């Protein structure tokens, strides 16, 4: 039996998928979720084989939800976004259904999923690395224990590379997120966050002083009192952004 979870904030949109799925005797809907928070919990609990995921949802969007899930299941996106917005992630997603979609289109998505089963699983990391919605420029969603925390971007002091993770430093301490520095550098506003070092992305609002260290290297002093190193190119970039 294939386990499926539906995640969409509109009950009618879920009932549409439910109706289409009723034709498949070997697929069971194990849970339905109204938002990403419920989604994270339900996925951890049921370990589904496939999820149908809406993108625009309360508090956190579909992509942000996936980022919080360890070993995410295969995803079929269901969204009312237009073709243009979809281009960004279509090459990495298994499939996506544009609302409203027909039964034929839906069946095709299921067939596609079946034909790929046992083959190479979808590359969720790649998908999430390369997609972002406008709101992701304004917030970072992280997990602390079992809690989901939404960090408005102005509360983030700086980001630090940490193996396969990125440490997100805030007043309350740091959070870990499995992402690359390159992703954040691309997503965040370059006028606000400056890559001052291979391993550091700094919030410009937090900067109080640039200090000279030994042998023409420099350090950035933050309001919190933390000092982070500036690389040569990072120093040049910072000067350019600050207009000095």
């Amino acid at each position, binding site marked *: 039996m294939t386990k499926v979870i539906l995640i969409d904030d*509109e009950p009618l949109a879920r009932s549409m998928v439910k109706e289409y799925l009723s034709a498949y005797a070997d697929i069971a809907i194990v849970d339905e979720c109204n938002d990403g928070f419920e989604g994270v919990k339900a996925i951890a609990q049921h370990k589904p084989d496939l999820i149908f995921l809406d993108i625009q949802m309360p*508090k956190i969007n579909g992509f942000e939800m996936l980022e919080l899930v360890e070993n995410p299941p295969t995803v079929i996106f269901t969204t009312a976004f237009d073709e243009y917005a979809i281009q960004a992630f279509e090459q990495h997603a298994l499939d996506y259904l*544009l609302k*409203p979609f027909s039964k034929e289109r839906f069946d095709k998505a299921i067939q596609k999923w079946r034909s790929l089963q046992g083959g190479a699983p979808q590359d969720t990391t790649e998908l999430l690395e390369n997609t972002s919605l406008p709101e992701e420029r304004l917030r970072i969603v992280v997990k602390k224990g079992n809690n989901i925390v939404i960090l408005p971007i102005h509360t983030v002091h700086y980001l630090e590379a940490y193996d396969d993770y990125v440490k997100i430093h805030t007043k309350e301490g740091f959070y870990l997120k499995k992402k690359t520095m390159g992703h954040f550098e691309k997503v965040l506003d370059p006028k606000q966050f400056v890559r001052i070092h291979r391993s550091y992305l700094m919030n410009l609002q937090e900067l109080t002083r640039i200090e000279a260290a030994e042998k023409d290297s420099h350090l950035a002093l933050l309001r919190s009192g933390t000092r982070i190193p500036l690389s040569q190119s990072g120093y040049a970039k910072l000067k350019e952004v600050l207009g000095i």
Partner: protein
Amino acid sequence: MTKPLVSHTTIALSYLAWWMFWMAVQTYAMLHAGFDWETALTDASITQLIYAVAGYTMNTSMHAYQPGRRTAIFVLMRAIVLSIICLVAQQFILEQVNAKTPGYEEFLASTLSIRGTVGLLMMLLVAILTWFWVYVTERTETEQRKEDAMKLSREVELSQLRQQLQPHFLFNSLNSISALVGTRPEEARSMIHQLSDFLRGTVKKEDGKLVTLEEELKHLQLYLDIEKVRFGHRLRVEILQNDECVAHKLPSLLLQPIVENAIKFGLYDTVGEITVSVKAAMEGTMLHIEIKNPFDPETSVTARGTGFGLSSVKRRLYLLYHRNDLLLTSQQGGEFTTTIKIPPSI
């Protein structure tokens, strides 16, 4: 075509009166000098007639030129040539006509320099007046054109601001209908009607048209009915208005984008049930409408900006009333308030 500053008849009559005046002055001067009536009148009328014709020629030839520094020299030369022609014509004609008057030949010879100077001054006067006339007319026309262009672009902008229908809303509504068709066909049909009425309402309205609050609320209700089908499990909307303000007029389709903004903001910034309230009341002669939605002050990033929905409403209000203080937003606790003020219609 713009209306001329002064009508052509008035100009022609003034022109005639001008030369009649100089004719009278000349006649008087000649009578004073001892000439008989006939000679004085003949001289004066022929002299001034020749000036008048030359002046007219000057005027018509100048309409072809734009006033400017480079054409000034041509105009001056033309005035000189015309005044010389006047002088020659006057001398030739008057010599013949007044040949019998004793002492006239000497008089004519001695006044030639005065006649030439007066002729030149008259031509220059006509030139200056014509120049001024052309300049003023053209400037008025340019200003009119500018004004027309601005009005046009304003209308285009207004209609664009009005018609920004959210495709996301439309596709999600169609998806809801599609879902209803299988299990609750009656509700599907009623939603199709609601959606059609709403869409018709947004496309048929004329720009800049004022509607009563009652009509605007009716249109808003169509929108709310659709949103209730989609989000009925979470969304509650309260509308409060008193009788004195329902007849107040406001620009059409102003309210719906603000309420849409509030609903989206409320629904996507929180989980669980939300209440969006719309409250209309008179404050003096102004209609105040307050729209409130809940949000999460801890995590919200949307609250800092106003989003496209509100900035376009603000721009519309500015274009219509030339005021920037008609849309206000504030936040207190977990509540975001948008207030719009509508001045009395003129």
